[in-house]
C-alpha cells in the first residue's frame, strides 16, 4: 500500500470528531490561576501613576504586575528564525501604551470573578497624547509611536523609529520609466486592502506551570514552539533552557499563532508566583489585541506592448504595521516578490515599500503574508490593462504567465520556475468554468447579472535558506516506529501528511508509525509551521531520516544474518538476502535485538533546509451574481486549479484550498477591521466582525494540475497560503465584468457596488 497521493484520514480525526479533551484549555492544570490583562483605553498614552493596592486586596488575587515588575529588555513577539527580521520594540508591560488595548497591567487570581473585580480596582492615571492613525502621514510625523532609545532593528531594512518607519526599501531591475514610456498601453491605479482577522475558532491561549526542577513549562496553542521558547526566555530575561514548550492540538492558526500573543502573560505570572496559571483570550481580546493582516495601499503601474506582452511593472506598497513591528518588514516583501513574478516577460520592474508605525493594533502574519495584498493589486491592475486593450484577461495571462523553465522576475528564491503547471491550471480552470461562454457577463433578465473573473497566484514553499525542518524517526522494540516532529499541526494535517511520507519510505502501514509533536525538550528542532514550509521542508527531513534509518536497519539486519549489508534488501517487514530471499530477519526481531547488547542506535534525526523556495501556482476563477439595485453579491461558483507539486494527501490539499478560498471570499466581500476616530476597534466580536458562514460561500470546485518539484519530498511544493491569494482579484474582476464598477478598496461591499452603479448611471 502506498500512502503518498492518497486521501487518508487524519491520524487525530476520531479524537477530534468525538470531542476529546485535546486542546490547551482542556489540558491546563485544574488549579491554574486565571490571568487577565488590563488594557489601555487610549491609543497613545503614558502611564503616569498606577495604583494596585485595592486590586491586591480582592480575596483570591495572587499577583498584580505593572511596568515596574517586568524586565526592561526589548524583544519581538514575532515567531521568526534568527536573525529575526522584526524589530525589538516590545516589553511585557510598557509605560508607553501605543494602541487601544495595549497591555497596562497583569492580574492573576484564583477565580475569574476575583480577577475581573481586581481589574476594575486598578487605578491608572494616563498622560494622554495625540495618536497617529493616518498611514499617509505617519512617516516623518512629529508624533512618534516608538520614541524610545532602545528600539532595535537587528537586520537594517530601512527602519527608523524616529521616522515611524519599520522598514523601507527600493528594488529595481532595468529602467522602469523608460520601458513604461515605450509601452503602448499602461495603467496606474492604487489598491487598498484592509486589515483582516484570522479568526481561528480557538482563540489564543496558554497555560504555564513549573516542573520538578523549577523549569517553566509552557503549554500553548502555537505554531512556533521553538520560537516561543526563545521569546519567553528573552521576555522574562531568563535562559531559554529554563523554558519548555508543549503544543497540544491547536484549534486553527492561519498565521495568527506565528506570533507569541498570549504566552508571556501566564509565563511571567508562573515564573514570579511558582503557581500554575493560564490565560485564555476572549474573542474580544483576539479582535482588539492580536495581530491581524497588514493593511496595505499598493500602487501599481503596468505597461504592455500592442500584442499584450507585459513589459514593465512598478509596485509601491505602503504597509501599516500598527503599534508594533511583528512580521512587518517581511510581509511587505511578499507584496512585490510574489506578484511581479507572475509576469515572465517584464524587462523592467521596480518594487518599493514603506512600512509605517501607527497607533492601532499591531499587524502580523495571516495566511498569504503580504502576497495576498500584492496579488490583489497586481492581478487587478493587469486585468484593468487587459480591458484597456480590449483583451480577455485570461488571454493576457496566458501570454505572460510563468512557464516551466522560464523566469520569475523579481522573485529571488529560485533561479527560474523549475516546476510549473500554470498553463495547465489556466486551461483546466477555463474549461471547468466554461469561461468562453460566460465571459464577461450574462444578464439574467431579473435585475441580476452574472460576471466572471480570473486571477493567478504564486506563493513560496518555505523561506529559502532560512527555515529548518526536523524529523526524528526511531524503530521501537515491537517493530513500530516513532516519528517525532517539531512542526505544528494546527488542523491542517501535517502530522498525517508526514506520516504518509514516512510510511512510504519505510514501506510500513501508517498504523505502525506513532507521530509525536511537539515538545521542545523532545522534538527535533523545527522552525515551526508557517511560510508554507512544513510539507516541503519538514517533509524532506522526514524523507532523509527515513532513508537513513532504512540503511541502518539493513546494516543491523545484515549483521543478524551475518552477511554483508550490500547483499541485503528491506521490504518493510523483513531484511533479507537479495540472493536468497528465504534468509531473512523480521523488523520485529530487529527491534527486539536493538534493545539488548546493542551499540548501534536505530534512530535518525535529520534536518532539512532548502536554499530554494519553489513557488506553487494556481488559477482562481469566480462567477458572481450581482443585484443591480442593492449591490448584493453572491459568489455562485469558484473554480480553483492548483499546482502544488504532488499533493501528498489530495483530501487535505483540497480542503486547504476550499478553506483558503472561503477566507479570501470574506476578505474580498466583507471582512474589514474598522476603527473609531479614537482608535477603538468597532467590530470587536463575531457579532460585528462577520466571517463567511456556509451560506455566504457558493460552490467551490478544486482541481489539481501537478508539476513535479525535484527539490521537494515526492515532488511536493506548498499549498497552505497560496490558496487565499486569488479570491480578492478574481471576485473584484467578476464584479467589474458584471457591473462595470471597479472597486479598488476592499472589502467590496454591496454599498460600494450599488453606489458605483448609481454613479455610472448618472454619468450616462
Amino acid at each position, binding site marked *: 500500500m502506498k500512502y503518498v497521493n492518497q486521501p487518508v484520514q487524519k491520524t487525530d480525526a476520531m479524537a*477530534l*470528531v468525538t470531542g476529546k479533551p485535546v486542546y490547551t484549555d482542556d489540558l491546563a492544570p485544574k488549579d491554574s490561576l486565571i490571568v487577565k490583562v488590563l488594557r489601555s483605553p487610549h491609543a497613545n498614552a503614558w502611564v503616569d501613576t498606577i495604583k494596585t493596592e485595592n486590586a491586591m486586596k480582592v480575596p483570591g488575587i495572587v499577583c498584580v504586575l505593572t511596568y515596574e515588575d517586568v524586565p526592561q529588555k526589548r524583544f519581538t513577539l514575532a515567531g521568526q528564525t534568527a536573525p529575526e527580521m522584526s524589530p525589538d520594540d516590545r516589553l511585557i508591560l510598557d509605560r508607553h501604551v501605543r494602541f487601544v488595548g495595549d497591555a497596562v497591567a497583569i492580574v492573576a487570581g484564583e477565580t475569574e470573578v476575583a480577577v475581573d473585580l481586581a481589574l476594575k480596582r486598578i487605578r491608572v492615571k494616563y498622560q494622554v497624547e495625540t495618536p497617529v492613525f493616518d498611514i499617509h502621514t505617519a512617516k516623518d510625523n512629529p508624533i512618534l509611536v516608538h520614541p524610545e532609545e532602545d528600539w532595535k532593528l537587528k537586520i537594517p531594512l530601512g527602519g527608523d523609529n524616529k521616522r515611524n518607519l519599520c522598514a523601507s526599501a527600493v528594488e529595481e531591475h532595468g529602467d522602469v520609466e523608460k520601458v513604461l514610456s515605450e509601452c503602448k498601453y499602461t495603467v496606474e491605479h492604487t489598491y487598498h486592502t484592509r486589515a483582516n482577522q484570522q479568526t481561528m*475558532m480557538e482563540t489564543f491561549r496558554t497555560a504555564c506551570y513549573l516542573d520538578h526542577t523549577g523549569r517553566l513549562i509552557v503549554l500553548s496553542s502555537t505554531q512556533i514552539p521553538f520560537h516561543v521558547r526563545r521569546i519567553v526566555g528573552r521576555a522574562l530575561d531568563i535562559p531559554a533552557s529554563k523554558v519548555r514548550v508543549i503544543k497540544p492540538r491547536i484549534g*486553527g492558526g492561519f498565521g495568527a499563532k506565528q506570533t507569541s500573543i498570549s504566552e508571556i502573560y501566564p509565563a511571567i505570572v508562573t515564573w514570579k508566583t511558582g503557581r500554575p496559571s493560564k490565560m485564555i483570550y476572549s474573542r474580544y481580546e483576539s479582535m482588539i489585541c492580536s495581530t491581524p493582516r497588514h493593511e496595505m495601499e499598493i500602487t501599481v503601474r503596468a505597461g504592455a506592448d500592442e500584442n499584450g506582452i507585459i513589459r514593465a511593472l512598478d509596485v509601491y506598497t505602503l504597509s501599516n504595521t500598527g503599534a508594533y513591528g511583528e512580521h512587518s518588514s517581511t510581509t511587505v516583501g511578499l507584496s512585490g516578490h510574489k506578484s511581479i513574478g507572475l509576469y515572465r516577460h517584464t524587462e523592467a520592474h521596480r518594487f518599493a515599500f514603506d512600512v509605517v508605525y501607527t497607533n492601532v493594533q499591531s499587524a502580523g502574519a495571516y495566511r498569504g503574508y503580504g502576497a495576498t495584498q500584492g496579488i490583489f493589486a497586481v492581478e487587478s491592475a493587469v486585468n484593468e490593462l487587459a480591458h484597456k486593450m480590449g483583451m480577455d484577461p485570461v488571454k493576457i495571462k496566458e501570454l505572460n504567465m510563468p512557464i516551466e523553465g522560464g523566469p520569475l522576475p523579481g522573485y529571488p528564491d529560485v533561479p527560474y520556475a523549475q516546476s510549473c503547471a500554470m498553463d495547465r491550471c489556466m486551461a483546466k480552470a477555463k474549461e471547468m468554468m466554461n469561461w468562453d461562454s460566460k465571459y464577461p457577463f450574462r444578464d439574467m433578465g431579473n435585475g441580476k447579472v452574472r460576471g466572471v473573473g480570473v486571477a493567478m497566484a504564486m506563493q513560496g514553499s518555505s523561506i529559502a535558506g532560512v527555515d529548518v525542518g526536523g524529523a526524528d524517526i526511531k524503530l521501537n522494540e515491537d517493530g513500530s516506529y516513532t516519528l517525532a516532529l517539531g512542526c505544528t499541526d494546527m*488542523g491542517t494535517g501535517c502530522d498525517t501528511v508526514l506520516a504518509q511520507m514516512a510510511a512510504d519510505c519505510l514501506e510500513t502501514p501508517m498504523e505502525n508509525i506513532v507521530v509525536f509533536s511537539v515538545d521542545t525538550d523532545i522534538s527535533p528542532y523545527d522552525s515551526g509551521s508557517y511560510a508554507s514550509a512544513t510539507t516541503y521542508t519538514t517533509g524532506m527531513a522526514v524523507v532523509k531520516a527515513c532513508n537513513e534509518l532504512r540503511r541502518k536497519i539493513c546494516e543491523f539486519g545484515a549483521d543478524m544474518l551475518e552477511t554483508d549489508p550490500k547483499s541485503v534488501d528491506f521490504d518493510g517487514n523483513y531484511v533479507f538476502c537479495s540472493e536468497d530471499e528465504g534468509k531473512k530477519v523480521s523488523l520485529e526481531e530487529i527491534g527486539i535485538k536493538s534493545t539488548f547488547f546493542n551499540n548501534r542506535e536505530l534512530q535518525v534525526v535529520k534536518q532539512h533546509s532548502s536554499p530554494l523556495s519553489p513557488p506553487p501556482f494556481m488559477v482562481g476563477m469566480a462567477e458572481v451574481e450581482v443585484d443591480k439595485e442593492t449591490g448584493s453579491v453572491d459568489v455562485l461558483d469558484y473554480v480553483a486549479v492548483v499546482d502544488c507539486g504532488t499533493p501528498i494527501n489530495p*483530501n487535505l490539499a483540497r480542503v486547504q484550498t476550499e478553506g*483558503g478560498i472561503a477566507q479570501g471570499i470574506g476578505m474580498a466581500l466583507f471582512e474589514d477591521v474598522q476603527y473609531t476616530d479614537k482608535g477603538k476597534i468597532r467590530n470587536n466580536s463575531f*457579532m460585528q466582525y462577520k466571517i463567511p458562514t*456556509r451560506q455566504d460561500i457558493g460552490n*467551490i470546485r478544486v482541481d489539481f494540475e501537478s508539476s513535479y518539484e525535484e527539490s521537494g519530498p515526492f515532488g511536493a511544493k506548498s499549498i497552505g497560503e497560496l490558496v487565499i491569494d486569488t479570491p480578492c482579484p478574481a471576485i473584484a474582476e467578476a464584479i467589474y465584468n458584471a457591473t462595470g464598477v471597479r472597486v479598488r478598496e476592499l472589502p467590496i461591499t454591496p454599498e460600494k457596488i450599488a453606489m458605483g452603479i448609481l454613479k455610472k448611471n448618472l454619468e450616462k
Partner: protein
Amino acid sequence: MNIKFWLNGIQRQEEIDPGMLLIDFLREKGCYSVKRGCETANCGLCTVLMDEKPILSCSMLAARIDGKKIVTLEGLQKEAEEFGDFLANEGAEQCGFCNPGFIMNVIAMLRELEEPDEEQIKEYLAGNLCRCSGFVSQTASILKYLNYKKTQEES
C-alpha cells in the same frame, strides 16, 4: 442554588451559582467537548441539546436546566464516530475545534428534518462557524452520510 437535571442520560443534582452559564457548568462537569469560540452567541461551538433542541450553552443559565435533559457530544459518542468518519473521510474535520458543536447540530438537524437538501442543510447549520474548511467538504460529508443512512434503511 440547587438544580436537578439529566446530563447525557444520567440524572444529577448539583449546587450552582445562579449566574453560572451552562457552558462553564458543563466544562466544569468534565464535558470538555463543549467549546467557546466567542462571547456573542455567534459561533455555534458551544451547541448542546436541551430537551432535544440544539441551543447555545453560552446563552443559557445553568439554573435554567432544572428539570431538563441536556446532551453533549460525550453522550453521543456512537453517533459522533459514525458521522465523524464521513467528515474525516472528506478531510473536513481540520482543526477539530468547531467539530463538537457542529456535529451536535448535524445530529439535531437529522432528527428534525427529513432528507434535507443542500440549501436546507446550509440554512440549518449557518450558525456553526468554521474557519478552516470553507464548508464545502462538510456539506459533502453530510450528503454522503445521508445517502449511506438511506441505503442502510432500504436494505
